[in-house]
């Protein structure tokens, strides 16, 4: 039986050109990177493409990872979030240029529906709040969005995020609070409509 290797060991092997180590790293992180990318881009197909690009970026920039500065996972999530935000911007620009005609709005809705169907929520109310959360998150400023997603979904501590983003802990706390507060307002508003 092969014992599970630590991230650091896998990285060292990849830097020596070990393809098998890269394959294992992919299996270990693909799901979490996809989840981060999906929640930012909010399109399953584009999130999968982003995962592919993130992994290419990852192995090309592996020599830049400094283990004394951040855990490997923290570094990876930051890379993923930054890349996904770039993809989201591109997608948004495309959608904005298309949104001039109503048929394009229909196309946008069609692209959103499959994800919503795939999301396993029985209760309509729950689905509505998730929709509110999704649309609110997509409008958050970059730093707030990153902090929000990395704290709530990747369980990174705020101190880690602060050191990764090269900003103060206070800035990160405020960003998370503002993002959460905005989401709270959006969910409340949705609740008030029902």
């Amino acid at each position, binding site marked *: 039986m092969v014992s599970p290797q630590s991230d650091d060991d896998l990285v060292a092997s990849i830097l020596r050109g070990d393809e098998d180590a*890269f394959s294992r790293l*992919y*299996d270990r992180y693909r799901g979490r990177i996809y*989840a981060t990318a999906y929640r930012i881009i909010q399109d399953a197909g584009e999130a999968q493409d982003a995962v592919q690009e993130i992994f290419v970026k990852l192995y090309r920039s592996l020599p830049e990872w400094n283990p004394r500065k951040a855990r490997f996972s923290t570094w990876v999530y930051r890379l993923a979030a930054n890349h996904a935000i770039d993809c989201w911007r591109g997608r948004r620009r495309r959608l904005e240029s298309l949104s001039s005609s109503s048929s394009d709005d229909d196309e946008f809705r069609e692209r959103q529906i499959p*994800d919503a169907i795939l999301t396993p929520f029985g209760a309509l109310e729950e689905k509505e709040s998730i929709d509110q*959360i999704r649309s609110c998150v997509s409008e958050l400023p970059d730093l707030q969005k990153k902090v929000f997603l990395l704290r709530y*979904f990747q369980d990174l501590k*705020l101190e880690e995020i602060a050191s990764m983003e090269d900003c103060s802990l206070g800035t990160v706390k405020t960003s998370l609070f503002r993002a959460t*507060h905005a989401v709270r307002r959006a969910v409340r508003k949705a609740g008030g409509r029902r």
Partner: protein
Amino acid sequence: MRKTGFRHYSEEELLMHFLQEETEEVGQEISVHLRECGECDSIFKEYGYLVGQVQAWRVPEIPESVWQTRKSRLLLQFREDLERSKGRGMLSSLRAAIQSAWDYALEHPLPTLGYIAIAIAFALERTISTFRLDRVLPGASDVFEILRQVF
């Protein structure tokens, strides 16, 4: 936005308390306060509920076959990149060596200047005859003598 009063904690502090992102001491103070203050406690619970709602946001699942196909493509690209980088191996080693020397020089300017002075003195003494240099720079042999005494 809720005001931070004498008795109450701000919403930001309550959220950080829910996420256990404050110091242990502050955490204990807020826990005691929440047992006594219904207003703060209800906001604290509301944030707890909200975080639960947020974390219920699932992502569409990707079939394993799709992951495997994508992985094969990625590994192929990895292999190709590796082959290409082997060709650039010497150049990148040289670049890395220059980069690390530069980093060292920036971090330790005084020892670096010392090394440079030693290298110049060594090179001058070994490679340039004082006779020829004296013709270009009168008095250079005196400078060499001083450098010789120093190093």
